[in-house]
Structure formats: structure tokens, C-alpha cells
């Protein structure tokens, strides 16, 4: 019933510091059926060819953000990439660039999570709350729609050359999160948060390279969010 797409070669980054200091690439040959994603293939490799192959995954439906990795040179979620949609029959799988590798395709995301925490990523209000929901118009809600959909997969920050060179740059992921709150009409800490993202490690480190837009699996355009933050800082400084 499922159509066979034939044989594919998966060249996968392997690294286990408990076994040796160097990384290597293992190549796995796999028969792939139509409908299989890159994650399906990694799971099949782990189940039938090499049980030591290690990667993160959970929802397999592109919402949890666990399986972000570098596939054929691009950051993406392995779970929503159809093998049938890739060019050629050789698939190269690497861990997300820019982060320390723990093992195989698993990277240490702690710095990414810390960067999010640096932008005060929660709603702040000092005004009293009404008994019911705070009012917000559909237009106001639309303003933050893309930012709210972020799944913290790390693809954007990991793809940013500015981040590679300056690891203390807040980077697209954290700046998108800052945008989400600065432009939420219910939030009252805009000035404070803009001060957090102003400065040489904040928005001004963005060199408009646009790797983040290309990398985002959820099509969220962090670059536009960063531009909006820059404009807002300038607007308020006049």
C-alpha cells in the first residue's frame, strides 16, 4: 500500500565523549517509503541498524520542538521533513550548529534557554486586573500572532552567524520572545524590556543576515521582530 521510494543513504554525525574525543560520520542505507519523514528514518535506523544512535524527539508533529537538527545543511525539525521532498538520495544529518554536542544529534540547549530568560519572558502588569479577561482586540492579538507560535526549537539562534561569533548575543530566539511581550497590548513593561534588548548584546548585534527567517520551521520571521524592536527603541529615544 505504501509506495517505496527506494534506497537512501543517511550520513549521520556521531559523537560520544565517553568513547573518544573525535566525532565521525556513520552512513546508513535505508529503504524509504513515501510518507516517511527524516525522523521516521532516524527511528528506523535506531530500531533496526544501530540502537546507539541518539537524538531527541517527542510529538513528531512539529509542535514540541525537540527534534531540531541540521539536515542537508539546513536547520529544521526532523519530524516534519518528508524524505520524498529532499533533493537527491543522500541525506546528511548534523546536530544544530553553535551549541556544544552532548552525544550524536543531542546538543546542550542550556544557553538557548538562558537567553530566553534574559528578556523577562512573562506578562507584566501593575494596573489592577478586571474580574474578567483583559480586553484585547483581534488586531492587537494579531500583532503578536507569529511570535506566540514559537516552539523554542532553537533553529533560528543556531543558524545565526552573529550568534556563532558572539555567544552572548541574545540572538533571534530570545529577541522574538522579547517582541512577543513588548508588542502584547496587555503588557506594561515595554520600556524595561526594551532596555534589556538594547545594547551591543541585544538587537544591535543583528546584522540582518536573515538566516533565522530561512531556518524557522514555523515560518515566524524573527528578523522582522528584531527590526520592530529596533524601530521601537529608536522611536522612544527621540
Amino acid at each position, binding site marked *: 500500500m505504501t509506495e517505496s521510494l527506494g534506497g537512501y543513504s543517511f550520513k549521520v554525525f556521531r559523537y560520544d565523549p565517553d*568513547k573518544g574525543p573525535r566525532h565521525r560520520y556513520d552512513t546508513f542505507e535505508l529503504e524509504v517509503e513515501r510518507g516517511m519523514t527524516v525522523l521516521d528514518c532516524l527511528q528506523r535506523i535506531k530500531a533496526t541498524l544501530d540502537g546507539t544512535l541518539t537524538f531527541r524527539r517527542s510529538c513528531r508533529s512539529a509542535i514540541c520542538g525537540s527534534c531540531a537538527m541540521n539536515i542537508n545543511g539546513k536547520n529544521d525539525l526532523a519530524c516534519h521533513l*518528508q524524505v520524498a521532498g529532499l533533493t537527491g538520495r543522500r541525506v546528511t544529518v548534523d546536530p544544530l550548529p553553535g551549541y556544544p554536542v552532548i552525544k550524536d544529534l543531542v546538543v546542550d540547549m542550556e544557553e538557548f*534557554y538562558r537567553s530566553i530568560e534574559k528578556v523577562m519572558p512573562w506578562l507584566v502588569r501593575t494596573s489592577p486586573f478586571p474580574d474578567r479577561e483583559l480586553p484585547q482586540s483581534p488586531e492587537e492579538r494579531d500583532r503578536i500572532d507569529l511570535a506566540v507560535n514559537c516552539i523554542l526549537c532553537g533553529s533560528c539562534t543556531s543558524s545565526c552567524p552573529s550568534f556563532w561569533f558572539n555567544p552572548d548575543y541574545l540572538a533571534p530566539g530570545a529577541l522574538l520572545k522579547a517582541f512577543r511581550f513588548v508588542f502584547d497590548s496587555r503588557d506594561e513593561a515595554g520600556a524595561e524590556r526594551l532596555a534589556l534588548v538594547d545594547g551591543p548584546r541585544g538587537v544591535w548585534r543583528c546584522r540582518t543576515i536573515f538566516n533565522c527567517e530561512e531556518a524557522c520551521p514555523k515560518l515566524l520571521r524573527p528578523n522582522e521582530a528584531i527590526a520592530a524592536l529596533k524601530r521601537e527603541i529608536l522611536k522612544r529615544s527621540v
Partner: protein
Amino acid sequence: MHHHRYETVIIGAGLAGMRAALEAQAAGSCCVLTKVFPTRSHSGAAQGGIAASLGNAAVDGWEAHLFDTVKGSDYLADQDAAEILVKEAPRAIVELEHMGVPFSRTDDGRIAQRAFGGHSSPRACYAADLTGHVILHTLYERCLRRAVAFHSEYLVLSLLVEGDRCAGVVAMDLLTGGLHLFEARAVVFATGGYGRAFKITSNAHANTGDGLSMVYRAGLPIEDMEFVQFHPTGFYPSGILVTEGARGEGAYILNAAGERLMKRYAPDRMELAPRDVTSRAIQTEIDAGRGIGGGAYVHLDLRHLGAEKIRKRLPQILDLAMRFSAVDALKSPIPIQPTAHYSMGGIPTDNDGRVRVDAGGGTMKGLYACGECACVSVHGANRLGCNSLLEAVVFGRRAGLAVCADLPSLGRAEAPPRGAEAVEKELAAFLDRRGTESLSAIRDELQEGMQRNCGIFRSEKPLGAQLDAVRGLQERFTRVPLSDRGRRFNTELVELLELRSLLDFAEVIVAGALARRESRGAHSRTDFPARDDAGWLAHSFARRGPDGPAFDYAPVRITRHRPKERTY
């Protein structure tokens, strides 16, 4: 082994776990152990909405929400618990919004609400079709603000019970394989569901019922396990969820003849009948050969909703349909099939999350459960859509509050070192395993067998065969070797331990289904097709015995609504 001491340890960082943590923090030191980073929790995959009788879209009240929930449960829900759920709902939603949850809005700036299966009024508060995602992230952000301590990628292996009380847990740090003993005066289970016992499921790979299995293995009962919800609309072939919200927005379910098949099964509510009714309808059509092309799926048609509405209200579905089923939902109907989705049963608790130790109702000191892994019971034999996100925040909060109330009078048990040492030995034994069986083959066989023999329609022979099959797989499991014998981030070991969990509670599901000789809610016996209130208006409690689960039963708590015939 590393030793930690906390007042409260919470297992699971989904909606229920994080909501409980936000309360329990007030009572003293508190940490959350989670086997995945908090925002990877499967709460984030919930799409359609969270129910509350806010009345923003139409006139509504908690009384209607209660009746819908009780009727939806096929009268197995404990009505006092369900009343708490629906009464607290409006407050809970407003609280979430005040925390920052970005709900979709009406033109006059209020939280938007849509229609949903089994609800008599549109009360599903939603954020496009990403409701679980936005609530999960907002709760995580709130936890950051309040500096909740997380131990991420810690797999809890064992519950330590000493006498009449809970003493703590032992967990493995995935990063190093190191074992950690967490002594605690209160332990809260918020470990979610078990969809991965089945082949076609909406659930994440992580949803393997580890909490249920641990409690069961500790000698405590688990409740109503035979009630497994199959969501009517999973994508074909992946089983990934297509929200009921699509039907709430007006989508049709069509068979091969292009008919709205629900007309035959629920002429009043049509596509918005409760999930058990709808899944049975779809399965019946498929079994009768009226699936598309004679195949094992039907169609969900969104096209008449129009591109603007679909893009605005169902953007995730649009994306998933293209990526996973190669269908442009604006132009073609989506292929769908029922998919294992939710567990109505779980760890039995009182209305404040305290874990019951038997059908009689006594509770264990220091042990709590909330969210999908718990059974209060608010959902009875079938859950209405949008009531699970609600249950998680309402009962997560209540469990946290109960911890605060109880802690002053809870002593502390010294965790028996034997309990912790035994886990260490067991782990070493797992890593050293030899054998010729295959982890993935056993898992595949279990999932396929459960799908075939313990799915939507059940009967004695296949259930009996499946019970034998599960026991056979349990035996073969002991001979599964590991290729990865390292301690560092050993996900093969995690999969092995998760498979052990699956094998544990799968046996209880099948045995419970075999024992319950009636049809009620999601449990449908073709050999006992009628609901039998005289014989079976009761909750099942399964306790591990030498020959498998032993069952006890307790009556349902009926307050306002006497069981009636259930039609839609």
C-alpha cells in the same frame, strides 16, 4: 547516588505539573522532575480549546457544562468532581488570561469561544488551533518568573513508599545516567497519558504512562483503565491530531459516497457528537467498506469554510495536512481515521488530588496526582473535548493547594535505602542485558495487537487473545538486550524502560476491558452492546497481583443527574 530533599516533588512539567508547582511553591522547597524539557510536554499538542461557561459566544452556564460533561461521560463521571471542574472553569480561564495566555479574541475584545463535540453551547476558549501550546508556554513563563526549580530530562524510575506514606522517588539524570534520590514529604504525579500503547495515536513518543506504571508497580490501584479515548479525527496515515475544533468551525465528515456519515449515528449533533460516538461511527463506516476507496479512512472536509477562516482559525491543520498527508486542505478533503488519544482512567484521587489507595477511598499520605494521569473521575467513560486542558489547570491547582494544606501535618519518612539501592541494581541489570529479542519488534507487536484487539470495538475472544499476547511479550521483554550500554544520554535505555511501562498497564487495559461486560462511553463490547447500569455503574480499581491485575469496584458518585439513555 545523589541525595536531594524537598518539601514537594512534582513529576511532569505539562499543564497540570506546572500549575501544581505554582501553588506548592508557597508551602516550601519544591522542584519539578520532567523527562522532557517542560515546553516539550504533550500538553502543547492540544489544539482546539479549553472549556468554560464564560458565555462570550452564546448564553451559557456551569449547569449546562456539568450536564454535558456528565452525559458525555456516559454517566460514569463522579458528579461532585465534575461540578467542581465546571464551576471553577471560568475563574481558571480568566486566571490563565491574566497570566498572559494569548487567546483568540472576539470583535469586542473578549476571549473567543467555539463550538465543540458534546457541548451544548460554544464554550471552547481557543487560540487559533494551538490552544495547548499557548497555555503550556505561558505556564512555563510564569514558572520562570516565580523561579520554579526544574530538573529537566530526569526520568523518574521508582516511587518509594514506606508503610502508609510516600517517601520520595528515584530518578535517572538522562545526561549522565546518574541516579538521584529525591526525598520529599509530598510527591505529585502529573505524568500524562499512555497513547503509545496503541499503533495509531495522536500522542507523543514520550507518552508511555510511566507514572501509571510506577504507581501500579508500587502496589497501588489504578482506576478505569479500560476507558481509552479514540479521537475521531487523526490524520491518515500518521494518526497526528486534527482538532475537533475543525468540526466546531463547521467541517463535515464524509464517507466514500460523499455523505455526511454522522447523520446515521447522531442526527441531532452530527459532527459535534461526543468523541466515542463519532469514532464508533467512523469505524463502523470503514468496517462496512464505506471508507474512501474501501480503505481505512474517511474524509474531513474543510473546504466550505473558506480560505480566510481556515487560515485564521486552523492554520496548524493546514500546515500539518500538507506536510503529513500531502493534502491542500483548502482544495481537498483531509484523510482521517480514529486515533488513540486520551486515557480517561488513571491514578485514583479524591477531589483535591490526594491519591486513593483502594476502592473504599482511603488516601495515601504525601501522594498526589493531577491531570491526565489522574482519575478523579471527571470524565467517566468518555471525555468531552476541551475538558482535559481544563482538568489539568483546575486539578493541578487543587493538588498544589492540597499539598500546601497538608504539609504542616505530614511528617517525613526516611526513604528506605533498600528502595533506592534496588533501583540502582535494576538499572545496572538493564544495561547489562543479553538476549535475542528486539525492543522495537516487541513494541510494534504490542501496539499492533492493542490496536487490533483492544481498540474501538472489543469482544471476548480478541481481548482474551490480547491478554495472552501481552503476557507473552512481558516474558520476551526480559530478553531484550541493549546495544547502547553507556550511561550518557542513553535513549535506548529510556525506550526500554518506557516499553516496560507500556507492557505493565496494557495488561490492565485489556483485563479491565475483558472484565467489564457492558458497553459504556469509549468502551464498546460487541458481545455486550448495551449499557448496564444495574450491573456496571461502577469504577474499576486494578491492583497488581501474582496472576495479573485483580479488580475491585466502587460506585459512581451521583448528585444531580440520574443516568438516562444517551443519544445525540
